[in-house]
């Protein structure tokens, strides 16, 4: 660094190079999906370094669990990934059921499967809309919300809530399905295939969309595995790993479905994988709705839960990846420790690797394609 002659005060040029600037994206930014803060080190428009700063939405969910009874804590998990509350609830309830050594009745399992798959579709729809919006396509988001609305209506009819549903209880279901539940789900699933085609006509072959997503944020299979990335992000890199197949839970072992995978692991592949996952979820729903077993919806577990001392880790395939719960019981009515393995948090680790060397516009696409929910990252 050359020394310029100065008028009195000496100029301290920072450690930055000549045309490098630090750009602070967030926590208030239109496309960081909540309160993620990204510090970007830019050379012109090219990213040469990035740092994710999280914690703006930290509410101490895991700590709260230690002071609530097992049932009381169940609604809290809905507030983690608040766009996929049903999946969160399923993971928690199944974990506690394992801890108790019981299982939900078959009817409850099937209804849980249907609702969770609908939730997966809703979550992917929200992702698709906002991701497209990030890349500058203004229209898909409204179509996506139109279909998501149908799903939320089913949730509302079923349990009275649309977003943070608290649909399941430990041991089964609180509510019996309402009259016309099957027809509603069936009607939605039958129409939905055409709707996905509609989104694909807007985006899949669009030159600008392909240009903006192909080759952007590439994550190789080795990197993905090494970083612990799960869910569609992992599958887009070519690793065929889906807990629904690998360690079936709920009623997934009864249904036929494919696990869509792609090879290169760029943003475009993740888009394709999620689109195909929506189609597969629809097929699962259609299979499940055909014969819902009759019978009880709640296992006999009693009013006060006192699991035997011990620990259990159980994970499910949430829309965003592997959602795991690690619960330690000391034999009292309150858990000794609850630890959540949120998929968004782990997937966000891949951000730096994907963003390095890309442009500012790509950063937005990469944040979008990771499909993070800050409620889950920060808990």
């Amino acid at each position: 660094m050359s020394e310029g002659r100065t008028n009195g005060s000496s100029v301290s040029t920072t450690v930055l190079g000549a045309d490098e600037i630090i750009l602070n994206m967030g926590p208030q930014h239109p496309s960081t999906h909540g309160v993620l803060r990204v510090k970007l080190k830019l050379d012109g428009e090219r990213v040469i370094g990035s740092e994710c700063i999280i914690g703006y939405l930290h509410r101490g969910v895991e700590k709260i669990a230690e002071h609530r009874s097992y049932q009381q804590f169940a609604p809290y998990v809905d507030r983690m990934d608040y766009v996929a509350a049903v999946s969160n609830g399923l993971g928690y309830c199944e974990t506690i059921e394992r801890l108790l050594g019981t299982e939900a009745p078959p009817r409850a399992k099937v209804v849980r499967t249907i609702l969770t798959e609908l939730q997966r579709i809703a979550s992917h729809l929200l992702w698709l809309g906002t991701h497209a919006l990030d890349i500058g396509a203004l229209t898909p988001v409204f179509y996506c919300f139109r279909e998501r609305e149908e799903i939320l209506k089913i949730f509302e009819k079923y349990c009275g809530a649309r977003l943070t549903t608290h649909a399941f209880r430990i041991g089964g279901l609180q509510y019996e399905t309402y009259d016309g539940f099957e027809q509603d789900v069936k009607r939605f699933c039958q129409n939905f295939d055409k709707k996905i085609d509609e989104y694909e006509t807007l985006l899949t072959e669009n030159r600008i969309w392909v240009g903006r997503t192909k080759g952007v944020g590439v994550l190789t299979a080795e990197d993905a595995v090494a970083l612990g990335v799960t869910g569609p992000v992992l599958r887009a890199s070519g690793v065929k790993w889906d807990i629904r197949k690998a360690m079936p839970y709920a009623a997934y072992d009864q249904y036929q479905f494919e696990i869509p995978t792609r090879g290169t692991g760029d943003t475009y592949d993740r888009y394709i994988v999620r689109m195909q996952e929506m189609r597969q979820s629809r097929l699962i729903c259609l299979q499940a709705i055909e014969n819902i077993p009759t019978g009880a919806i709640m296992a006999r577990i009693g009013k006060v839960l006192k699991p035997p001392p011990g620990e259990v880790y159980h994970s499910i395939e949430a829309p965003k990846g592997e959602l795991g719960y690690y619960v330690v019981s000391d034999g009292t009515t309150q858990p000794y420790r609850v630890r959540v393995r949120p998929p968004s948090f782990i997937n966000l680790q891949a951000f730096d690797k994907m963003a390095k060397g890309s442009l500012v516009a790509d950063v937005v696409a990469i944040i979008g394609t990771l499909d993070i929910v800050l409620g889950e990252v920060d808990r």
Partner: protein
Amino acid sequence: MNHLIPTAIQQYVLPVLYGIVIVAILPLLAGYIVLMERKVMADMQARLGPMRVGPHGLLQPIADALKLLIKEDIIPEHADRFMFWMAPVLSVGMALLAYAAIPFGPVFQVADLNVGLLFILAVSSLGIYGIVLGGWASNSHYSLLGALRSAAQLVSYETAAGLGLVSALIWAGSLSMKSIVEAQYDRGDWFIAYVPVGFFIYLVGSIAETNRAPFDLPEAESELVAGYMTEYSGFRWALYFLGEYANMMVVASIATTLFLGGWLRPFVRYHDHFPGTSVELLDIVPSLIFLFAAAYCLRLVPRQPVKIQRMVMAAVAGLCLVLSGVMAAALLASPGVMAGIHGAFWFLAKVFAYIYGFLWFRFTFPRYRFDQLMRLGWRFLIPLSLVNVIATAVAVVVSEEWGLHPLASALIMQVLTLGVALWLAGRGEEPAAREPQVAEGD
């Protein structure tokens, strides 16, 4: 009509009057383009758009303007206050100045400069300083990035758009906006028939010049928050907005004048009259359009939920009826008046059709990335526009030297240009998605 008015008035008073009318009407018009944009967007996105202020949101622009006027005006702490103040004014001022040379009809034009087109291009190229200086003065990284993007983008696409215009100019043989339209009248066809490729180049270039999607990188919401406008609020922000929409009207007017026949109505060569009168058959179309609009509004009147909305809707219907009457009355007036009023109608109709195209693109396409934008400009549009200019010149020579019909020779050359375009587009596919040295813009 021209001999009735003294020359002094014609020379000095009328242009000033036209200028005042334009400056007074333009903000209103821009407001209603925003409403049109929101309504079109809503229609394409399966929703209704503004519905509350006035029937079907018809008074929304006025409410928006009032809101922006009374909002607090914030100047960031370390901003360059003078530049911060000047930039939006520059942006709007240059856009308004460009209207001086735009002919809204054979009569309604402030000044018929003999370098009219170049004047408009020059003035609108000054508008970029409003963006660049505003972005710099805000003292924010987002604003600065927006300003840099804007500077690079404008310089790149101005060339292509200008060369696109040249192809039409070769056929017109003049730079005066008025003579260009008259040349199209003499040829009997709009220049879009002669140089469709040139029109396409200008369309893309003009979208990029006005920073509209899919080229809205300088203000890309999801990346740069609002780009160069990030730190602006209230009335200054409204000025930027006004400047942007006024600029859209300017580029639409240029395209209308050069490619779409200016104030000429469609089928200029068709001259059948109503039997027994001097009124041409096609000249009643504007009147009928307004009549239909009035009927449509009248049908909507009883459906309005509130009395005041019913009244406003009825007033709108009345306005349409009056306009229909004016259009009809113009048919019977002297030829000068008739040409002036109908010319203005057709001109504005074409301008709005062009702007509708802008909106359509905006809601259909994702945004380009910066390197892709530059590649499209430099590696596709500029070579194509050069080829197009050469092809057009050859077509002119061929038709003049060998007596080939102008349209025929033009079309042959345009087909050849299209072949080049396809080759260029295919070549554009090849480069890898990212090269380490692009996208700097320098």
